[in-house]
């Protein structure tokens, strides 16, 4: 393990899974969470939304404690779709197929992080694939951020920008498909290698189109009214765009060595509201296009060295997925997975969402706050067995 060691808290908090609490530099034993059920007052009601309701793309239930209109507290129940993945004792290639399918929308983040952890465990020099992986992750970030902004437009009933953003999302997806032969990067990643024809990536049109939609949204007073001063949260234990929207310069592109970015400038806002998260994500779309364009000028299409020195070891990796830090820990014996752990950015984001949504918000603010975090419940319930 080049980058991590087991021990006590060291550095910022990344998140937890059912075994570990993960920090910036260390993996610590998990401290049990306090999941007390919220008691309602006599005048309040539990307002249930989900798990099977319109407007939700995953099975999740929100139990909102409300005295009417305002949200006093909220419980998020994400356990409706348990995801026990039989992966222990699989060989690496078989495990990779399963990792790719944890969250199709964020396959690149999951597989790249997993492979980086494997390469750390087996002591493989992966510098040759660093830039290609960055291009892959940034393409995924563009698509994911556009999807989150589309969700905000949908919540506001802004059908035109919503459809425009859906069109852009599809355009990006087709570029991914042309480049990697799969719309969601399936089979594109291998140990120390990314299979793709990078010459097919052309993003300048997307930059202009997105910039125009983004500016139009900024000029809409109605849209601004709905997202400004809504869902405010400022928490030192945060991650990804939500952290950067509150002024924290947290970004694995800067503070993790798993993937090496060259001179990346972090965009931050201070307010911590839905608007700030919108701004951070929008600017990161533009920044990602610039990163890709710069890297495309530098990389070649040659294949990297896939020589494997060891067949056992422990490794970790942490990269900046579109939603925040994603972390993988692997333990390999004889090229088989002996232990595997993942910390999803959705873990911290869901905690932040709970704090944000009960911070002086009413029920109609709910969707904006929820969409602004871009949470994927499927990742939360993953349990490797």
């Amino acid at each position, binding site marked *: 393990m080049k980058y991590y060691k087991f021990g006590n808290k060291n550095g910022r908090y990344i998140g937890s899974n059912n075994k570990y609490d993960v920090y910036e530099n260390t993996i610590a034993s998990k401290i049990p969470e306090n999941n007390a059920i919220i008691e309602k007052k006599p005048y309040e*009601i539990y307002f249930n939304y989900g798990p099977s309701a319109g407007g939700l793309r995953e099975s999740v239930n929100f139990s909102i404690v409300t005295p009417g209109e305002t949200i006093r507290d909220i419980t998020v129940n994400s356990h409706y779709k348990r995801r026990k993945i039989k992966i222990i004792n699989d060989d690496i290639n078989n495990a990779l197929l399963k990792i790719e399918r944890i969250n199709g929308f964020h396959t690149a983040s999951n597989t790249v992080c997993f492979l980086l952890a494997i390469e750390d465990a087996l002591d493989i020099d992966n510098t040759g694939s660093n830039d290609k992986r960055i291009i892959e992750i940034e393409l995924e970030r563009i698509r994911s951020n556009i999807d989150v902004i589309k969700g905000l437009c949908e919540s506001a009933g802004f059908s035109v920008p919503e459809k425009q953003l859906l069109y852009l999302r599809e355009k990006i997806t087709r570029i991914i498909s042309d480049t990697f032969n799969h719309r969601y990067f399936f089979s594109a990643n291998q140990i120390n290698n990314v299979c793709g024809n990078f010459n097919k990536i052309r993003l300048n049109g997307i930059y202009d189109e997105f910039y125009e939609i983004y500016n139009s949204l900024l000029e809409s007073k109605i849209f601004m009214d709905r997202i400004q001063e809504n869902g405010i949260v400022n928490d030192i234990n945060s991650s990804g765009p939500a952290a950067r929207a509150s002024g924290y310069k947290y970004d694995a592109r800067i503070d993790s060595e798993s993937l090496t970015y060259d001179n990346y400038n972090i965009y931050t806002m201070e307010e911590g509201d839905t608007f700030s998260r919108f701004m951070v994500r929008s600017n990161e779309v533009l920044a990602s296009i610039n990163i890709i364009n710069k890297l495309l000028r530098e990389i070649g299409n040659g294949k990297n060295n896939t020589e494997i020195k060891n067949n056992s070891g422990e490794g970790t990796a942490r990269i900046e997925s579109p939603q925040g830090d994603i972390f993988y820990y692997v333990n390999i014996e004889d090229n088989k997975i002996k232990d595997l752990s993942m910390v999803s950015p959705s873990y911290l984001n869901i905690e932040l969402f709970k704090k944000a949504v009960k911070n002086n918000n009413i029920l109609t603010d709910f969707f904006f706050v929820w969409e602004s975090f871009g949470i994927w419940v499927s990742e939360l319930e993953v349990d490797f067995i």
Partner: protein
Amino acid sequence: MILYYLPLILIFLAAIISYKFNKTGYILTAIASIIFSVFTFKIYDYITYFYLIAAIVWVITSLFSITYSKNYGKWLSPLFILTVAGMMLILYSANFLVFISGWEIMSIPAYLTVAINKKNDIEAYVFMFFSEISTVLIITAGVLSFYYTGTLNFVKINNDIVLLIFAIGAMSKMGLTPFMISEWLPIAHGSAPANSSAIFSATMTLMGVYGITKLALLSPESLYVGILFIVIGIISVLFGALYAYISENMKSLGGFSTIENNGTILSVTGLFVAVNNSILRTFILITIVIYAMAHSIAKTGLFITVGHTGSEYFSEVNNIKDNENSLGKFFILSSLSGLLPSLGGLATWMVIEAFFMTAFLHGPLGVTAIIAGSLIAMGEGFATAAMLKIFYFTNRGNKKHIKYESHIILLNGVILVLLFIISPLIIGRYYISGIPSVLIFNGFMIESKFSNADFGLISPVYIFILILIFTVIAYMIFRKPKIRVSERWNGGIENNEYYNSFVYSNNIRLILKKILRTKYENNELIQTVDLFWLVMIDLAGAYRKISKYIAYKFMNSSISMYLIYMIFAFVLIIIITSVVY
């Protein structure tokens, strides 16, 4: 002569009898009330309409009390009847002395009723404090009247100061302390058993209206006093309706609704005092009595509806529907919301018409009238929301022993509809007409007009008949609607959660949080505090502090300081008296 006062004798007798035989006492009260209205009510003599209103309320509440008061001990019925007796004395009064005697006979049993039925004394003391303020001011008005006219009888006065002081006293009793909504009335009215709350809210405040109207008829027109009444009334309407909407105690809701209704009556009375056009004044006077009639009878209905639930708070009601109760409630609450076909609908229409007609007088009064009319219409909107709250959250099961109470609620509702239908018979002929060319025959239409100008019109009989015909036709075509009841979809989760009254009205708590001072305490509690009540408590606290300070610092066992104080007070009184003379 003795026959004329027979109801008074009967009711005092009923008060004594009821200590032992409360059922008999209540029946005797109902009989005395009927005789009282027969002897005193005169058509087109609008001041006597108050007698009819009071009698209807007393009959309904007495009948309701027969079953209702079973759980409240032996003292409730004599105190209830004595309060009614005091009111009857007020209505009989031809001079200030009898009026004030009646005022106190009405008030003292009321304090006792609250005191006996509440564990804390505070409600009774609050009630007593504000009521006695009104008594002091009414006595002052009586003394001034004697000074100006040389008699204590109710006679013409050429000065508006008597009306002003009397009105401020009566307002205090009506919950309309000048420029503030005070919580005392809902606290006091909400703390008594429902039958007493009903007469407190419906007829005790009516006595204030009666007194103000009586003096307004005897006083000269006064633009400034009129506008002052309108302003105080409007503030009361808006805040009364708002607080009613957010109240969780059902009887307090009724109390706030009373403030709202009394605010409207006071505004219209202000219009009466300010306007100098005789035709318009008569229309306004009719508006006052029709509105008072609608308010008093419907408010009685509201309180007996609340009493029928057997609970004090919305959260305690079992919410099982009873059709008879629902129908009665529907008419009662329609009336309080100012909706047709009920007397309240007609009364609200008349109020708005009166204000908008006055706008044609131009000048400061015209402008005030336009603004006031619009604000009253807004207040009525809030009131509708409050009444819907009562309608939805006060259902009670169909048990045998409370079936009788449902009959009374239905009777109350039907009376409001009947009074609406026959209203053209009790409104002055000048305002009654028809348009035969469109089949509205003469005598069936109420017209708001003054000078040569016509304004709005309404035909209660036609409205009722049309609603009835369309209802019957709809029923004959579609019959009883086939309703398919299905389980609620709650996202696929079993949860016995129901929408409640607090949640229903929380939107206004949040929208108007600056006014209503809605706040979370420790991120958990929501409290709404009446701003005016807080200011008053602060003032009272400051007064006590100063008194204490003076008592300890200057007058503490010091005879000389006390004597200085006495001499100073004496000189001050002499100066004031000399200035007045």
